[in-house]
């Protein structure tokens, strides 16, 4: 038998599943001291991380002021800079939502990277293979099939988890590598453009995502990503399916006794999670690269998605904020290199520091508050099903 402390109570943070299960929308605008502390944590995290970054920059003998002004200039300095920042943010929103969605069902989709690759190559394939279709058909078709491919890629680990109990962490890791080599096989084989470069032919104009800001490469994918944020929010918190998925995430056994088809929900949740990562790949293929280029290794959007999801506390809106932050830093890293000549690793360290401080939010909470809150037990996202017998 399981003992009582497996049931989360007073849950908070990443695993605020319990709170979410209450009816949404009951929060008022009054900000209590406790809420003020909660709100300030991510801000303090960012500031502390930037401070650490400043020390590192000093350490290598450069000026932090110059570095950070280059960062900001690169991220927000002109219309085009802002557009580039948003282009960086877009796929992170998708992969962040993807990982968050799986966490909500108590699953750890570490395979966003592989699903991203499948989405990217399928979208590129549909994008160049079909010709003569009008944009209103071709563009959504390529996008949706890309997302579908990502969904399928995640459905298999979901199925194996639901039916055979094989831990999804193993299978999603394995399928990352399979996707990498499979995409290489395709892009060097049937999907290869003739010529010396390992890439597919370009996506035809009708399948390319609309540009939404003249003079920049900002594309419709951003709107799709924002749509996905809302969709995931709606799905999770306003539908029966979402309620079930969250219930499974909190306690699969209780959910099962409550009459929820846990197996079905696990497969569905993994598929949706995969589809979101696939959509990230599709958006890059149809909105940024306009083809699939051989990867030579993992791109990183999937792994960054894990950090974004966790930083955003697995809430769609939190993911949006976290993706914006990470995307901004990634964009700023470029100009920090080119203008201030700061090595790109600094940004990686800053990003990690932000996540670590948010992870260790209890430390801050204790510092900011006079006394610590009551009992807490978080359900770990990576750990899922517990057979108590």
């Amino acid at each position, binding site marked *: 038998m*399981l*003992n*009582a*402390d*497996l049931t989360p109570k007073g849950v908070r*943070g*990443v695993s605020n599943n319990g709170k979410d299960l209450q009816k949404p929308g009951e929060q008022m605008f009054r900000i209590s001291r406790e809420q003020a502390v909660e709100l300030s944590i991510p801000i303090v995290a960012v500031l502390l991380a930037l401070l650490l970054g400043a020390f*590192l920059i000093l*350490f*290598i003998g450069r000026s932090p002021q110059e570095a950070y002004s280059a960062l900001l200039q690169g991220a927000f300095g002109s219309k085009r800079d802002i557009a580039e920042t948003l282009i960086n943010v877009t796929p992170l929103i998708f992969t962040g939502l993807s990982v968050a969605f799986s966490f909500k069902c108590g699953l*750890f989709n*570490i395979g966003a990277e592989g699903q991203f690759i499948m989405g990217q190559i399928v979208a590129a394939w549909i994008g160049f293979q079909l010709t003569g279709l009008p944009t209103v058909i071709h563009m959504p078709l390529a996008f949706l099939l890309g997302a579908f491919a990502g969904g399928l890629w995640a459905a298999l680990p979901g199925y*194996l988890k639901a039916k*055979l*109990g*094989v*831990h999804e*962490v*193993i*299978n999603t*890791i*394995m*399928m990352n*590598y*399979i996707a990498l*080599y*499979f995409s*290489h*096989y395709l892009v060097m*084989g049937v999907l290869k453009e003739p010529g010396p470069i390992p890439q597919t032919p370009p996506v035809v104009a009708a399948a390319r995502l609309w540009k939404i800001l003249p003079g920049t490469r900002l594309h419709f994918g951003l709107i799709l990503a924002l749509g996905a944020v809302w969709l995931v929010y709606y799905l999770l918190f306003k539908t029966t399916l979402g309620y079930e998925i969250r219930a499974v995430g909190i306690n699969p056994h209780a959910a099962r006794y409550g009459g929820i088809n846990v197996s079905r929900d696990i497969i569905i949740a993994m598929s949706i999670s995969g589809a979101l990562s696939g959509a990230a790949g599709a958006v890059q293929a149809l909105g940024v690269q306009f083809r699939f280029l051989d990867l030579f290794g993992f791109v990183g959007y999937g792994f960054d998605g894990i*950090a974004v999801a*966790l*930083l955003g506390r697995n809430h769609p809106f939190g993911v949006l904020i976290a993706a914006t932050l990470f995307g901004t830093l990634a964009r700023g890293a470029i100009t920090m290199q080119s203008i201030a000549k700061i*090595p790109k*690793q*600094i940004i*990686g*360290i*800053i*990003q*990690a*520091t932000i*996540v*670590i401080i948010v*992870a*260790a939010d*209890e*430390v801050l909470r204790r510092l900011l508050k006079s006394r610590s809150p009551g009992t*807490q*037990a*978080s*359900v*770990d*996202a*990576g*750990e899922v*099903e*517990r*057979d*108590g017998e």
Partner: protein
Amino acid sequence: MESNNLADITIYIALVVSTLRMATPLILAGLGGVFSERSGVVNIALEGIMLIAAFMGMLVSYFTNAPWLGVLAAVASGAAVAWLHAVICIKYKSNQVVSGTAINLFSVGFTGFMLRKVFEHAGQSPPVAKVADWTIPLIEKIPVVGAMIGKHTPFVYLSLIAVVISNFVLFKTKLGLRIRAVGEHPKAAETVGVDVFAIRYLCVLLSGALAGLAGASLSLGFLSQFRENMTGGRGFIALAAMIFGKWTPYGTLRACLLFGFADALQILSQTLGLTFIPRDFLLMAPYILTMAALAGVIGRSVPPAASGIPYERQK
């Protein structure tokens, strides 16, 4: 390409030797995962800890020219990073996956940054002294077996010894019983007087030390330098192997050997010119085999019941 004689014994020797070598870092890191999760703390930071340890090991070997000192430094730095993980997860009860992810992110930036700072060179460190191979006196003389296990980098032997010791500790000692109790029923364990926090700290530190050893096996055992991202996802594969092995040392060993074997087979097939299979599918083979083995044979894997759940001390 002409086909080789598959009856040639050297091929099989090579296969065993290669399997052992490739499994070694996975075994060490996987064992680290076993200890951590058995005590109830998820450690997905294995990858990052390995990378930092590989770097620190190289650094100390570079400055002291004493590779074993480097190994010690790797183990110590692995434990140090794990300590951070432990404090965040155990003392402050934060989400363990978040902390692990942050450490993984940090390790890539930190090692790349330090590499440039110390050596003013990107990509890789200069060659350093690595630990010398061990030869096992009598066994070395036995035909076939001697060629298979008679001479290796010490890490190969250390990893196998670590498996035996870990299994003994976990399943044959009082400490092991406590570790497992803390991972399954922390409250019950505390009731009978076990210090849940102390056990968890110990296990996470041990986990870091083992992952550190795994990192050292790369930069000071198989290679003699540090290369950015040289862990190449091995920490995650080790994590998968640990789950595959159902959180037991021998199970983890088997899973790592299977994975190493599949990889060795893949490389050998290429060397022998088995080109009727597209090369990309050969490269995929270890991953597909792992999935097939799991789906077909191993099936359900159940983590320690309290794994991932921060423990709140009872009054």
